[in-house]
């Protein structure tokens, strides 16, 4: 199958593209920078440019759409342009080009209003309730994509949760970096139970979604390792793998949220180069449970994760030691 992967220069996008190449597909990528994925051909450009998109989807049978603006802070208009309008343009172009399968890579935050999520499935995306610009625009994008599910184009939405692994600049390195600088607090003792996803499992799950789009279409699925852990244990595990001291100080979650909220407001006035140390969204993520029912995705995609949490940590440690 000829497959277009958007956002293949990112941590997860690169892994997905590589997985698809390994699976024998002819892989084309679309993003601004080179993907660096062996065996894939890159189309360079932006999702906001119609001509580039048309060129990218030409002759393609399947699309895996990962490109997005992912950040905890930033200009709201930019989130909208990339995450909502970019997705809309890609869907239009794909439908016009006769693409048969479309996997929208989304996020569990599209249905997360801040309360603890305990063993839930993939609730419908809700832009109204989603927290922050990223989650809000991703929620809109998922609704747009699933609305385009039809007999001619099967659309599946996959929401990987907290993807980590070697080479992850988003979550893994941030945790390690903050722990190294002593700026990683545990909220409420780090007891909130959270799901996470080792990167190889995320990639194989997304590839499975493309393979099984004919049966799983029209639905959204949360994808995780299916091994929830207290957030404190998970962060400690990642820190140990990276060879840095694990976080040892805990602050009450309420304080963390209040501080995050304050920092968020200050940041909006004086945006700097780095991200704020603790946003309200992050405080919620780190202090409330979010783990998911993995039966639906495993059944619909006929897929199970192949790398356990412990094995993933061992691979991370090996990568860090190099």
């Amino acid at each position, binding site marked *: 199958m000829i497959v277009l992967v958007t956002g293949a220069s990112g941590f997860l996008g690169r892994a997905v593209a590589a997985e698809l190449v390994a699976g024998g597909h002819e892989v084309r990528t679309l993003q601004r920078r080179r993907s660096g994925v062996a065996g894939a051909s890159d189309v360079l450009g932006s999702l906001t440019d119609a001509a580039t998109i048309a060129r990218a989807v030409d002759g393609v049978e399947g699309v895996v759409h990962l490109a997005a603006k992912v950040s905890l802070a930033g200009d709201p208009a930019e989130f909208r342009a990339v995450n909502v309008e970019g997705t809309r343009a890609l869907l239009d172009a794909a439908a016009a080009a006769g693409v048969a399968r479309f996997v929208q890579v989304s996020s569990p935050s599209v249905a997360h209003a801040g309360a603890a999520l305990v063993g839930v499935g993939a609730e419908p995306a809700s832009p109204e309730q989603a927290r922050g610009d990223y989650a809000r625009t991703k929620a809109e994008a998922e609704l747009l994509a699933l609305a385009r599910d039809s007999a001619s184009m099967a659309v599946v939405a996959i929401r990987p949760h907290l993807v980590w692994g070697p080479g992850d600049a988003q979550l893994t390195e941030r945790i390690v970096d903050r722990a190294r600088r002593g700026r990683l607090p545990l909220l409420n003792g780090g*007891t909130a*139970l959270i799901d996470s996803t080792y990167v190889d499992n995320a990639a194989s799950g997304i590839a499975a979604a493309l393979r099984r789009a004919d049966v799983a279409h029209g639905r959204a699925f949360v994808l995780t390792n299916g091994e929830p852990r*207290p957030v404190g244990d998970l962060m400690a595990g990642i820190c140990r793998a990276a060879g840095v001291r*694990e976080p040892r100080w805990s602050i009450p979650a309420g304080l963390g949220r209040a501080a995050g909220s304050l920092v968020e407001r200050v940041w909006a006035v004086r945006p700097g180069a780095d991200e704020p140390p603790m946003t309200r969204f992050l405080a919620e993520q780190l202090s409330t449970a979010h783990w998911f029912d993995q039966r639906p995705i495993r059944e619909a995609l006929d897929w199970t994760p192949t790398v356990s949490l412990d094995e993933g940590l061992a691979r991370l440690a090996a990568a860090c030691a190099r």
Partner: protein
Amino acid sequence: MTEAASRPPTDLPGLDPRWSRIVEVPGRGIDAGTARSWHCLDTAAVLEESRVDIVGTILAVHGNPTWSYLWRHVAAATVRAAEAGAPAWRVVAVDQLDMGWSERTGLHRPLEQRVADLAALTDAIGLDGPVVTLGHDWGGVVSMAWAVDHPDSLVGLMLLNTAIHHPGGVPIPAPLRLAGARGMLAASTVGTTAFLDTTLALASPTLSPDVRAAYRAPYATAARRGGIGGFVADIPADERHESRAELDRIAAGVARLDVPALMLWGPRDPIFSDRYLDDLVDRLPHADVHRFEGASHLVAEDRPVATAIVDWLAERLGEGADAAPAPDARADAPAGSADAFVPIWHGLDARRDDDAVAVIDMATSGGSAPREVTWRQLDDRVRRIAAGLARIGVGRGDRVSLLVPPGPTLTAVLYACLRIGAVVVVADAGLGVRGLTRAVRGAWPDVVIGEVPGLAAARALGWPGLRISARRLPAAAAAALGVSHSLGEVAALGADAPLPAEPAADDEAAILFTSGSTGPAKGVVYRHRQLSALRDVLAEHFAIDEDSGLVTGFAPFALLGPALGTRSATPDMDVSSPRTLTARAVAAAVRASRGSIVFLSPAAILNVVATADALTAADRSDLAGVRTFLSTGAPVSPDLLASARALMPNATPHTPYGMTECLLVTDVTLEGIRAAASQPDAGVCVGLPIGTNRVLVSALDAAGIASGAPSAEPGVLGEIVVSAPHLKQRYDRLALTDRAATRATDALPEADGARWHRTGDVGHLDAEGRLWVEGRLPHVLVTADGPVAPVGAEQDVERVDGVRRAAVVGVGPHGLQQAVAVVETTAGTRRAGLADAAVAADVRASTALPLVAVLAVPSLPTDIRHNSKIDRTRLSAWADRLLAGERVGAP
């Protein structure tokens, strides 16, 4: 003043407007010559639409100040059951005149008139077929009158918190006395909504605002509330009341009914208390009774009464049309042959001329010497007390609550009660005052026999029953405690009096209360046949004969010595606190009784081992004569058993498995436990069934429900189901619990003619037929991969260095639960939270069960009685909150 019937608003929660119906009824009595309009709920039309054949009618009558809205769940549940293919029961639920949405007549309607009103209504709608009446509060009385007056139509009777008789000399409940007082009456019941609001506020849990509003809807104005006051004024508080004669007529008629009867009760009702339930049970002894612990007056709102009714109709009235013969719970086909039955007091009779010592009380409070009672003395005392009790009117079937500590007095009273057919009620002081009060009120004894503390509690807490003091009290004290006799007086009365006839094997003998460590204490009913069987199985299995000699440091068995025909000694200890038993006290009791068999509780063993250093050489030599010792009540570790055996080197340690419902199910010795230790099985090995007992397992399904047909297949995890000749007869006034405990056991082959019992424990059988216990059914984790019993993984975790004790509990939604280990560490934990990384890693590696978290706590919550049964339900709720990210303290 009159106002015709109307229909209720169509938007009341739970009420289907299609059930509502207005009926014009030719009046009777004071209404003769006129017609009255009634509102009632009638599901006939809806059932006919579903094209089901109606097998009978439930005629439901509400009380004061409610209306037919009370029965909406019954209407819904019966329609639902019919649509699902079960026999269809029509519901006709009336609004009595001047109540609900029926006509406001403005006339005084005493009981006799209301009875005539209902008969007029049922004639007007042509109700004949099989009818089961259903009534609540004063509607219960009207419904019972209908039942008494329509014997040809009646096939059953159902009652919720009501009363038919008011005993003379007992004041009517205070709230009603106040409401009925002149002047208060109009003000509280009609002028304002106070009485209405007070009644609705009794609901427990609280009614939702929309349901409360629905109850209030027909009583919006004082003019519409006239009927509420009329009802309260019609309460026949004394003999001279105009409705008294009609009430007495109904009461007498009810006692002659033999149709199946169901009573569902909320014991927290301040008006229709257990006193009235007890009176109704006396009139309808065959009734199925269930007390919903914690429920109040509006029991139909508080608990799933509708489901209970649908299930009961299916069970007792089957297809409905043909009235089933009354089930007579008191006269089930006797098990075994009648000749085989040897009454429990036979051991006393046999040795009545023997001057050897029968019972020794080693308690030496105040430095007095141990008290010894010979067989002759004991038998004589039992006969005197028995005859004396009979003379003061205590007889067969009367319930006698025993609040006397174990010792010769309790032994004598117990056998005396059994001899005359009185039913002894025994609750462990370990229940605490609240638990004990709940238990005593629930059993509603006719007589309480106790020491001063027990009698004082009975007086202060308003426990029912004639009070007899175990010792002679000064007149003033006796009066203050409401004590009518002392035991000495009773015995004196019985000195030359004849003994009444002996009870039969199938008469009830005892009600023993469960410990309450696994939910509210339940009364367990034993018949004489089952007590005798317990004696026999004990004698047989442990080879007890006349020369054995028993040391009984565990209450239930302390009483069986005389029945077993051998001497018994109670060691010097605070019996309500087994942890006070010392090694020297055991040795002294062994010496005094020349005992070869020692019964101990796990907590007692712990202290006996801890105090072993104080033993003298003579003590040790006496203990060397013990050949058997038993630890019963909760599991103990092989190490502790071995430590105890070091003190009694010639004894075989046994740990039988049992429960209040079946005191001896299986048994295993220390050697047996050690042999089982090499097996890969999860759980605690409790050995093979004793005697003719049978043990099966009802497999758990993917949802964690014990739905499997009970079988002996090895390796299957499920609920443990047992049968034994000494198994309980039933639970007391817990018909729904009985049904649950015997569910799907009808077809099983019985052990020696006995019944089956679902224990609520889970475990499995192995290929050799040994039973392995793996926890309690409510503690089973239901994961995405199916049910998981906690004990196996706990044993794995407890083998980890640094872990002292562990519990495995589930977090998350049912069916998707994740396992969490909660540990006490040997190093100690200051604050509950995530376990140390190294401990967590070792714990995870110790078991095949995936653990999402390992938590450490200062101490695990356990039951007070044994300090060994971990409260996993509470722990699971705690872990759920902690792992959701909430800030919580220790569990």
